[in-house]
């Protein structure tokens, strides 16, 4: 994560690719991306799905930010953040806003069936007080890896 230092980072854990609604969480964040960028933030989605699954999902939903595969060892990143659901083998629906120095400044765990939306993230980014306008140093381009 240290390569993202210097600008705010949003880490969005979600249970799985391919949830059966069109307004799913990652699609929403994709649509809100210009606003995240205005606040200089980079967003990463992360689930236990594998890289090829992410690649297909990302392509189908036209996502413009990376999805990380917490696939092997499964859920290790989620466990490090305390948001792994061992019983289901998936992550929580959990959001972290990390500041430019790498400190977690806001986090939220949603009931797993409830998409938390983006309002909490935007409030947290605004509270960081990062001057809007300049693009983040890492622009979040790229595909699943």
């Amino acid at each position, binding site marked *: 994560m240290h390569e993202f230092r210097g600008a705010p980072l949003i880490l969005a854990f979600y249970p799985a690719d391919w949830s059966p*609604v*069109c*307004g*799913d*969480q990652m*699609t*929403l964040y*994709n*649509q*809100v991306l210009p*606003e995240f960028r205005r606040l200089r933030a980079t967003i990463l989605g992360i689930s236990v799905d594998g890289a090829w699954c992410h690649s297909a999902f990302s392509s189908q*939903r*036209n*996502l*413009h930010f990376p999805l990380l595969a917490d696939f092997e060892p499964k859920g290790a990143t989620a466990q490090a953040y305390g948001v792994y659901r061992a019983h289901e083998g998936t992550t929580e629906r959990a959001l972290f806003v990390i500041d430019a120095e790498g400190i977690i400044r*806001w*986090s*939220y*765990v949603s009931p797993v069936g*409830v*998409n*938390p*939306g*983006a*309002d*909490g993230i*935007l409030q947290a980014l605004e509270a960081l007080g990062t001057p809007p306008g300049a693009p983040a140093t890492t622009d979040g381009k790229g595909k699943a890896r």
Partner: protein
Amino acid sequence: MSLHRSSLQPAVHAGDHTAGAADAPVTLVEYGDFQCPHCARAHPVVQEIQRRMGDRLRFVFRNFPLTEVHPFAGHAAEASESVAERAGSAAYWAMNHQLFAHQADSSRALADRHLAEYAATSGASGEEVLADIAAGRFTERVASDFMSGVKSGVNGTPTFFIHGERFDGNWGDVDEFAAALEDAASSPEAAR
């Protein structure tokens, strides 16, 4: 972990598209996307609830086009705004209905030339509506609706708010949805 509650902002205002009595004991706000199949499925559910509740329900529709997955949704929203400005509230609601009713006619059912047809059926000039779209007259209005939705905690389409609080229940079940609205209508002091 932080506490977090999603509530409508801004509150319903004069610029909104509203149907039903202004002093109704409950207001239902929908953020929707005219190309979203779930929104099309919700449309007759809302109509049924409007029929059941009559003057006791005020309904508001705001735009939340997910254009990255629904390429026609942006123009469809702009067309509805153009119809509203040029032909009034009744025409707006007719257009809103046309868009959902025709959404699944074909993969291009919401392409511009069809938007012009639906606008004409709704009582506006199709040519004028297309000119408004080409000029981008309502892009800012639609973007403003979208950002208000994001800040209110809209988490997909459709998202509903009852008394300004996000409704996370099952809108697909008309009885359950109506019961939630009836509950809210009988406790108007909860209005925020």
